[in-house]
């Protein structure tokens, strides 16, 4: 079996998209790892739906404060310049276009950039949380996810079969096998995991991939 990137590495690759000074919201699961993966010397302001802008790293057990958590229930640390606000103000910030980048997990992404990341057919009581607001309001939506399901089925599909979060909202997909840009011309494969080739990645992708002319190995 060929090796795939681990979750830390996928998150690290996504975090490379954060420009200095950007406001970034991190979704549930793998995206949350990005909080600890900011390049040294760079500044990123992490926003969380529950009403905080500018939190620091994920907290260690010793630092844990239950009144300082991100929206994924992870305790985080204080950081100079951080501020608190309530949920209504937080979503004004989100819908109003003040979040530069959101990193979200996904069950499926379609070739048009439709996102399905909240509803599971087997779990009708799960909800979307702030995912829909973020997918609609953020400047750029990056998805981090495993390229296939546990059963090996593609998650990058022609049309999503899981309930949608928003249509045509995803800009970039980072998986454990590839980096894919969503463009008007389709899904452009720009980076590929070490040891994998285009036909192998395409075989695990339902939607058609267009290899970039400067396709390269994922490097960190």
């Amino acid at each position: 079996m060929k090796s795939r990137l681990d979750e830390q590495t996928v998150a690290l690759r996504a975090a490379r998209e954060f420009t200095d000074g950007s406001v970034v919201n991190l979704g549930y699961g793998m995206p949350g790892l990005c909080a600890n993966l900011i390049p040294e010397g760079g500044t990123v302001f992490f926003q969380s739906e529950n009403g905080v802008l500018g939190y620091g790293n994920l907290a260690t057990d010793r630092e844990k404060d239950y009144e300082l958590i991100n929206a994924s229930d992870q305790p985080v640390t204080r950081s100079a310049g951080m501020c608190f606000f309530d949920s209504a103000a937080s979503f004004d910030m989100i819908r109003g276009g003040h979040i530069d980048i959101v990193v979200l997990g996904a069950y499926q992404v379609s070739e048009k950039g439709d996102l399905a990341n909240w509803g599971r057919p087997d779990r009708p009581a799960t909800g979307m949380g702030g995912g829909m607001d973020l997918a609609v309001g953020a400047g750029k939506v990056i998805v981090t996810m495993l390229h296939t399901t546990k059963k090996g089925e593609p998650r990058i599909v022609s049309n999503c079969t899981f309930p949608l979060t928003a249509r045509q909202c995803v800009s970039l997909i980072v998986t454990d096998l590839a980096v894919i840009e969503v463009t008007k011309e389709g899904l452009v494969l720009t980076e590929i995991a070490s040891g994998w080739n285009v036909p192998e990645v395409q075989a695990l992708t339902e939607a058609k991939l267009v290899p970039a002319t400067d396709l390269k190995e994922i490097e960190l």
Partner: protein
Amino acid sequence: MIINKIFSDCDKAVADIYDGATIMIGGFGSFGGLPINLIAALANQGARNLTVIANMGGVGFELSHRIKPEGYQDSGILFENGQVTKFIGSVPALGGMPPTSPLEKLHNEGKVEIEIVPQGTLAERIRCGAGGLGGFYTPVGIGTVVEKGKDKKVIGGKEYILELPLYADFALIKAHHADTLGNLVYRGTARSFNPVMATAAKTTIAEVDKLVEPGQLDPETIVTPHVYVDRIVEVPQ
């Protein structure tokens, strides 16, 4: 005459919550910011046929150990007791947790109705209820199950959905400090849904870490003005 809003304990503060009432429960979902003592008191009090409006449905005591090692009581207990017939919120159950929360189990058995609302839409619907507005148009939910059955309108070339206000009979909220008039300040991310819910109920009941005299809170830092707060219970942390 200044009304005395101070209650000696949570049981007395929730004593008149009646069957069929609509209850907002503040906080975000997990421990920080949840009015856990008011929730426990409502569970003991036993009012039934309630509609609960909250961001999350609660994980229940069993799963709460995953969030806080000693565990804590959240709104899960109200579902477990069979006190709730309808839930309105953004995360009835967490996909990342086992499917064993009281709300998820009861929903799967057809015993509790769920209305799933995007989180920002939930906050805004509550703000509309608080501010006497009839609703608002949002782009959130277009092209998804959320738009089902709702009025749509194109404004400036963009599609929007009409969302309607939410209002409650009682709001149970958690704040850090209160003065005896009912002015409230919060701490950290425990603020979340508490301030907006405090403004959208006929009767707002606040559980606070510490009660102080008027003048002891800096007026520049007060988040919830006292007109919104009807009852205060000090539960020292």
